[in-house]
């Protein structure tokens, strides 16, 4: 299975029925494809909508209806739209159950860096700093390494997105829970050994008992 698909299917297991969820641009967007049966969540896009759906048929796009990446979306029955101030009140105010964000690095303290690479890439933080500061759960969906270079590191070398530790890190190899004591290896991808995971991880992983294989959404 494609690494991104493994990540998206595993993150989808975290969705809780009847909650408000924000998916970041890129890999996190894929999570919407694997919502488990019997689970209904409301997806927010921070540019001002709750309850958006798949892109409309070609030629039926509404120029006033897009996601935070500027792509055309549709609105499901019951959808609501609002201004940016209200949208971020939802995000910071504890109304957002979960955000799923991409990552460049996560460190042993659970801090996330995902908004710039000094001297190379300066896209800006957009809504990421508000999402990490305010969502009740912050799930990082990222590939475990960049061409062999660990993205899970002892201490961030890139500028942090927030001082607040994230709740969960899901990669194509492992599920990791940041705790006060360090990063706990919670699950491994099917067929992946602990040695493989540790070899591609730049921070110590705490192994407290057996590490089960991750369950993936159909």
């Amino acid at each position: 299975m494609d690494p991104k698909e493994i990540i998206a299917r595993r993150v989808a297991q975290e969705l809780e029925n009847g909650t408000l969820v924000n998916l970041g641009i890129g890999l996190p967007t894929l999570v919407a494809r694997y919502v488990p049966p019997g689970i209904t969540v409301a997806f927010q896009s921070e540019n001002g909508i709750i309850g958006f759906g798949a892109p409309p048929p070609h030629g039926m796009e509404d120029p006033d209806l897009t996601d935070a990446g500027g792509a055309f979306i549709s609105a499901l029955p019951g959808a609501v739209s609002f201004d940016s101030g209200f949208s971020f009140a939802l995000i910071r105010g504890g109304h957002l159950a979960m955000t799923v964000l991409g990552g460049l690095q996560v460190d042993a303290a659970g801090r996330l860096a995902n908004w710039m690479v000094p001297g190379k890439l300066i896209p800006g933080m957009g809504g990421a700093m508000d999402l990490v500061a305010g969502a009740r759960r912050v799930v990082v969906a990222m590939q475990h390494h960049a061409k062999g270079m660990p993205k899970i590191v002892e201490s961030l070398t890139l500028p942090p997105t927030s001082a607040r530790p994230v709740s969960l890190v899901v990669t194509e190899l492992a599920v990791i829970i940041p705790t006060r004591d360090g990063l706990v290896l919670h699950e491994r991808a099917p067929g992946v050994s602990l040695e493989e995971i540790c070899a591609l991880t730049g921070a110590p992983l705490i192994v407290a008992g057996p590490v089960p294989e991750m369950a993936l959404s159909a």
Partner: protein
Amino acid sequence: MRTAISVEDAAVLVPDGATLMIGGFMAVGSPERMIDALVARGARGLTVIANDTARPGHGIGKLISAGAVSRAIVSHIGTNPETQQKMIAGELAVELVPQGTLAERVRAAGAGLGGILTPTGVGTVVAEGKQEIELDGVRYVLERPLAADIALIEAHEADYNFNLTYRLTATNFNPVMALAARMVIAEPKEIVPVGVIPPDAVKTPGILVTHLLKRPR
């Protein structure tokens, strides 16, 4: 009776060097006719407060390409390589602000507040040089209000009293910006008689809107 003005006349109201708020998110909900008129007028030295600089050829991206902007206060520039090039070349100063903080700083200016306390940015470069306050065990950054000389906003409908409505995700920063500048130039898609827009549907009272563009032909 208030009268709508042409986009060319509106562009003359925006002097070189002005600080502008411009509504829109990736150019969705941006006043495109007003932006085109500023480019045509050859505006220079503008400070633009907005969510992003869109893409080349779209919304604020057109002002960036034309060299009209010398300073941008935005949350995101990743979709516009020209913004990044001009920033690296020293032709454009960019100040990055978290999106939710941007909305609240603009709102604070429009609402008469001296600033806002937000957990966003604590422990990051955003908090550098700013006062931090701890209340009930939570750390907050004190963020100051952000005001502008002129707000350029896009609306869905306007009536003859300049009351405005917005539509779907084209709403974004427009209503909050309409409160935060002394001159507010609104670009509506439709103009309708007074009474057509129900009072509950008005999102920006016309009394805040100083100038309304004629509707496109």
